[in-house]
């Protein structure tokens, strides 16, 4: 199956096109090598444990082209944004300077589109780009490396606290059947702090394929809050790898909200390399359409002592939709005094919706405190009746109860502007 994809002529063709664009020779060589590796590895198949519920073979039969910047900016596309932000806007994968707004950026911070960073700071960017990502596990990362041409490079120097959130806004506009492969690199140096929101939206774009990789390096004592909002078009495919690398005492909070795409896959991989690193992961997935499929895979690698991780994800599924949730905590021999918690709750609004949930632990040390649990349930019939008996229409009552189901997770967002933003998006676009 995957052999077909690897030799797909459209893929070869667009690879040749991307290769003809000017780039440093080392990058050209790296991309060629990654492309070769991807072809050898092939797309994941449903025979692979990590992909057994998530079929991606249709990608091989689709002729994706390369994205072209659109001159049809949707009206009001920035209107609903947060106030006081540092904003980077992408148009079909291409950076748009005119729509971006960096005036609040502290001067000591490097924040630029990847292509520009490659020109201005080649020595800085190169080592991060040349990192060997685990493409055997996640072949889409090979594919991303092979096609990468744009994305974000953000470097926050020591002791720098960025007071405003940074918004990476990926807009897909008025084009169909394209593949974009953004690569985002975020480096937070010692004792720095930043809040980031990565958002993907669509305006009259359909059937496209986003394959994004976000790398987050958090050095000692740094704190990164990373939010992601995925509201791609309902015919699109969104595959994301988010890799977090944490040093001593660092703290990362992630919050992923997925309600777009026909098929979305989020792989969140946390590496706790040094002691007392902390990572709290929260997420929501809201599926409202027939044949919509959202898959969250989390892997937390506890490699040092005294690290803490927690996972709290909630999902709401309606119609004939399907969700997958899989989180795994792996504690090495060295990872003494590990605290790990994994929770996943699901609410099914329809009898044809389906969820496969599995929190897992693999532990090679004693002296760990690990908790995990998962539930799948339906709306509380008594509560529904109570609301209806007070005159609230059934549909509205169901919405109220569905919203009630996730509200505690949203309430946990510390930053109130961010909380309101996410709440608004959830109400408006997921109808809750």
């Amino acid at each position, binding site marked *: 199956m995957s052999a077909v994809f690897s030799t797909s002529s459209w893929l070869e063709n667009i690879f040749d096109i991307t290769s003809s664009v000017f780039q440093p020779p080392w990058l050209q060589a790296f991309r060629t090598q990654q492309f070769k590796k991807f072809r050898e590895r092939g797309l994941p198949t449903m025979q692979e444990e990590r992909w057994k519920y998530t079929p991606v073979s249709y990608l091989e039969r689709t002729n994706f082209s390369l994205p072209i910047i659109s001159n049809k900016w949707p009206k009001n596309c920035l209107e609903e944004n947060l106030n006081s932000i540092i904003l980077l806007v992408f148009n079909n994968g291409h950076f748009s300077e005119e729509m971006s707004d960096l005036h609040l950026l502290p001067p000591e911070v490097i924040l630029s589109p990847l292509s520009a960073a490659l020109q201005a700071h080649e020595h800085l960017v190169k080592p991060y780009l040349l990192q060997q990502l685990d493409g055997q596990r996640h072949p889409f990362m090979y594919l991303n490396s092979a096609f990468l041409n744009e994305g974000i490079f953000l470097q926050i120097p020591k002791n720098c606290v960025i007071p405003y959130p940074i918004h990476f806004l990926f807009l897909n506009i008025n084009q169909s059947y394209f593949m974009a492969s953004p690569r985002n690199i975020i480096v937070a140096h010692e004792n720095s702090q930043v809040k980031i929101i990565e958002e993907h939206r669509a305006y009259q774009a359909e059937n496209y394929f986003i394959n994004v990789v976000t790398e987050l390096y958090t050095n000692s004592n740094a704190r990164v809050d990373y939010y992601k909002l995925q509201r791609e078009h309902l015919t699109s495919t969104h595959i994301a790898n988010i890799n977090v690398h944490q040093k001593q005492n660092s703290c990362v909070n992630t919050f992923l909200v997925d309600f777009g795409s026909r098929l979305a896959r989020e792989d969140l991989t946390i590496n706790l390399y040094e002691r007392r690193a902390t990572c709290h992961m929260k997420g929501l997935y809201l599926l409202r359409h027939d044949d919509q499929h959202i898959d969250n895979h989390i892997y937390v690698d506890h490699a040092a002592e005294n690290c803490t991780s927690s996972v709290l994800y909630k999902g709401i599924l309606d119609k004939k939709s399907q969700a997958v949730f899989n989180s795994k905590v792996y504690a090495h021999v060295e990872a003494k005094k590990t605290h790990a918690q994994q929770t996943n709750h699901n609410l099914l609004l329809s009898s044809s919706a389906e969820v496969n949930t599995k929190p897992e632990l693999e532990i090679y040390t004693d002296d760990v405190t690990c908790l995990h649990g998962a539930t799948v349930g339906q709306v509380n019939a008594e*509560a529904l009746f109570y609301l209806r008996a007070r*005159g609230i229409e059934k549909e509205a009552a169901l919405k109220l*109860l569905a*919203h009630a189901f996730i509200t505690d997770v949203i309430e946990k967002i510390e930053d109130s502007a961010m909380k309101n933003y996410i709440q608004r998006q959830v109400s408006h676009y997921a109808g809750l």
Partner: protein
Amino acid sequence: MLIIKNLHASIRDEKQKTKKILCGIDLHVKSGEVHAIMGPNGSGKSTLANILAGQKEYEVTQGEAWLDGKNLMDLEPESRAAAGLFLAFQYPVEIPGVNNMYFLKAAVNSVRKHRQLPPLDAMDFLTLIKNKMKEMEMDEKFLSRAVNEGFSGGEKKCNEILQMLMLEPKLAILDETDSGLDIDALQRVAKGVNSLRDFKRSIVVVTHYQRLLNYIVPDVVHVMMKGKIIKSGGKELALELEEKGYGWLGSTE
């Protein structure tokens, strides 16, 4: 106002065995009247109230129920509420995550929409609810809490009455609203109910105790046993029951 004719209802348990709960209820409540329904535990009082409110868990096998000329069995629970029926539940359910104020506003405006009234805006709603809360001597803090979550038994009952005052029903059914209330709360509940009382509204009070009926004086008292109304009388029947219990009625069939 409310006419119930020969109502039979049953429930199916986990083993799909049918259990008969209501065995031919007849009840006629006229506009402006207050009726009390008394009777031992398990006689079917709550079942009757829930069926009227639209609980579909029960199967109505025979009979009918009309509210103001509308066949209740044709209506969804929300339409019954809009048509003016209100049930103060015996056990109000806790709904974590649903804000009490948001809920009340949604309920009031949904019912207003059905009744072809414009929705209350945030300010008008707030003024109204604060007034009603004052009447019920409820702390405004309850508004920011989740519906009934962590409320004491008495607070839940007061919250039911608050909802009733906000929704202004034509027919209010109070299912053991008095149980678990201290005497002050009981008086407040009674005051709330009486404030709603007029010649166009009817009230059905399900209770075990004469106590509440001292404040909400009934026009008719019914005794329900084993799914049937076996005796009806004036307000003095409640006193008689309080004195003698239900045992003496056992053989009246």
